[in-house]
């Protein structure tokens, strides 16, 4: 039985994918994508949660059983990357919204198709 955090991460992933497909509003699509990224982060952090929840930041004198620092380091990168992608995607959505006055994916798709094939 894997740690409960892993199960929660899996559930978050399902919710995220569901919303990504169901919601037509691009803002919600981005939120869903953020949730999917969060679920990977939660997964990495929770993999080892049953053994130790002691932070791997220790004064040199005390050395107990600590949590694995490597996934934490990876996750830091993942957080920053997901922020970067989100900022850029959001700007793109803003630009599209200004052009087409909507954030609805289906309508933008149609409008773009109309523009390319006159």
């Amino acid at each position, binding site marked *: 039985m894997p740690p*409960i*955090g892993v199960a*929660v991460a899996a*559930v*978050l992933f399902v*919710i*995220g994918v*569901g*919303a990504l497909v169901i*919601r037509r*509003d691009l*803002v*919600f699509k981005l*939120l*869903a994508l*953020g*949730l999917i990224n*969060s679920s990977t*982060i*939660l997964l990495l*952090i*929770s993999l080892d*949660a049953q053994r*130790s*929840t*002691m*932070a*791997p*930041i220790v004064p040199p004198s005390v050395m107990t059983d*600590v*949590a694995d620092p490597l996934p*934490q380091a990876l*996750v*830091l990168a993942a*957080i*920053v990357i*997901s*922020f970067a992608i*989100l*900022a850029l995607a*959001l*700007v793109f*959505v*803003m630009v599209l*919204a200004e052009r087409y*006055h*909507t*954030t*609805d994916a289906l309508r933008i798709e149609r409008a773009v198709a109309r523009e390319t094939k006159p």
Partner: protein
Amino acid sequence: MILLVLLIVLPLVAAFALSRHRPLTGIIAMGVLSFLLAAVYALQGAPDVAVAEAAIGAALVTLIYVLAVRRAGRLVVAACDVPTLFHREGTRLVGLEYEILAGFAHEEHLELMVHFASPEEVADTVQSGDAEVGAGGMLPADQHGCLATQAHLATALFVIGGEGSDSPPTWRRDDLDQVSEMLRHEVRTPITIDLARCLALGGDAIGSDGVQRLSEPSAYRFLVAEDRKELHRKLDRYVDQLRSSGELDVLIRRHVR
């Protein structure tokens, strides 16, 4: 124990956030989710990640979402271009409905943002929340899924074109250019059209004998999305005020002969 509760709450918050109708609610709920996640990380022995998640995931991300979707301080109007009602002259906007909305926006300290669209799109954009008010010769017939304000100008409907044809009149709500194009090519189908558009087309395009006035009266209104009851109430009250103070008549006289 706290950890367990937090972990169980997470999916609920996520589902709540992603099933909202308004983006802002969803964004704020996702911000809350990020804070909860940060707490989970801190409790699972990853304070570094918790700090990063709180600073970037919760604060910065939520912030830029809010900055991107904020509507505060503006009134977004989707309008159909109809002379005398809502019309673009070069870079200027003119027309009766434009003046009413501009006055309303001024009163409410809002910046008026206008984008033009075809009549179908106007109702559509208002309904989906991409615009707040629909204007430009909107008739009760346009009102699918939207609230309409009270009438601000009475109008009549006319059937034009298609002499000698038995087919029922179609309700043309295209661009005026397209309508006049159709008329010029003597399309056999009769067209129902409202007064403002009929006037805008001009006599030569229609041919006086082809115009037939329908008996039922109609009136122009503004469209407001169904979930913006507050806005609807305010706009309605504003039109009411204009009418009772007589300003509306002045405006109508200025724009409509």
